[in-house]
């Protein structure tokens, strides 16, 4: 069993793991920000009545949702060079995470908008509000409260998904474990430590998500 679990080596490698944690946090923060922008744009195109925007958005969302993230990462990693585009691994990885989460976020926002009661929209129309005003004063304020909890959930998923970037040799938390394994051949120590750090990140995000859901701060504002 794990009687000879070597804490000394873990301690020795601590700087590497902490670098990994920082890198994972950085990748997740950048990707979720970009994904949010992508998601908002994709969702806006998806619900707009304009065909030339709507159908590409549908295709993008459905294609992303029905293929694995790993395949998308490899697609960009092996595919971009064939197009003559040379990007470093980190940027490729962030691009993949952005496109992947963007599609899910678009669907989350759309579900939020659809959850608004039909009657409210009709009331808006009969009060003489135009489309933009209805969006701004009636639909979005109500959709926001429904959207925030699943968005925070998507954020947690994204942190875990970022582990796949280690497979295209982006330096992050899982990669630190791989590095330690290849240098010392102590996979148990390495990957259990990696798992421990992911758990820490998970609990921070989860506590925040639960707290915001309990408060439903955003729903009460309006």
């Amino acid at each position, binding site marked *: 069993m794990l009687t000879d679990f070597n804490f000394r080596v873990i301690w020795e490698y601590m700087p590497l793991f902490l670098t990994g944690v920082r890198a994972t946090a950085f990748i997740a923060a950048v990707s979720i920000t970009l994904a949010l922008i992508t998601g908002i744009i994709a969702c806006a195109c998806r619900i707009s009545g304009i065909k030339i925007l709507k159908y590409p958005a549908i295709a993008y969302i459905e294609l992303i949702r*029905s*293929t*694995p993230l*790993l395949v998308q990462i*490899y*697609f960009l990693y092996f595919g971009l060079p064939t197009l003559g585009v040379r990007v470093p691994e980190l940027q490729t990885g962030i691009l993949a995470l952005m496109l992947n989460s963007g599609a899910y976020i678009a669907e989350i926002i759309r579900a939020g908008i659809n959850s608004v009661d039909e009657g409210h929209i009709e009331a808006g129309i009969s009060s003489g509000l135009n489309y933009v005003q209805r969006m701004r004063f009636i639909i979005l304020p109500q959709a926001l409260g429904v959207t925030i909890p699943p968005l925070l959930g998507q954020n947690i998923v994204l942190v875990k998904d970022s582990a796949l970037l280690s*497979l295209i040799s982006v330096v992050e938390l*899982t990669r630190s474990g791989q590095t330690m394994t290849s240098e010392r051949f102590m996979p148990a120590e390495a990957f*259990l430590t990696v798992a421990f750090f992911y*758990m820490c990140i998970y609990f921070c995000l989860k506590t925040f998500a639960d707290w915001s859901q309990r408060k439903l701060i955003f729903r009460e504002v309006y």
Partner: protein
Amino acid sequence: MMAFYFGQLVEIFPFFLKGLWMTSKIAFISLVSCTLIGLVLGIFRSSNSIILRHLVGVYVAFVRGTPFVVQIFIIFFIFPEWGIQLEAFSAALLAMAIMGSAFICEIVAGGIAAIPKGQWEAAASSGLTNLQQLRLIVIPQAMKIILPPLVGQYVLLIKDTSVVSVIGVMDLTRVGWVTVVRIPEGLMVFTLVGALYFMISYPLILLSNYLERRMAV
């Protein structure tokens, strides 16, 4: 050059079908085992016993808190240290079963929790035993709530099988990865891989959408 590689790709297409078969095999076995284990764990999770509930809770937290790649590495590398030799294929199935059952457990527990207390009480006062209450009254009603997210979870699980390629299981993703070394047309190779995944998961996505619409009424 494109045409040349395309010809080569057509030539080795059977290789891709083999990968597709492997992916479907892993997906099928793990979906069945995840559903069975997840159902039992979900019932444990919503049981009255505090110990049982929290034990399952810890298991679920551990699985949900760590990335699937890390779980696979742990299973694949640590079991041999304990003297249990696992083939890549069985390690993959074990990892899928552990990961998937935790997610399905939460869906099942959520469905059971959504059934009003009065249903349990009515069943108990009709003289049904605990097991009968669960089997005859609660589960059939909870099924309606469980089914749409369950099918959604199936899609996620099928996509997650791509990760088992990292320990060398020759699934669809691994086939793409091996091919791209020989045929340096990343776009073409992974478009093909993506298209094959799309074929499996898109019908399930449509089914999940349909169930969601139908069950909502």
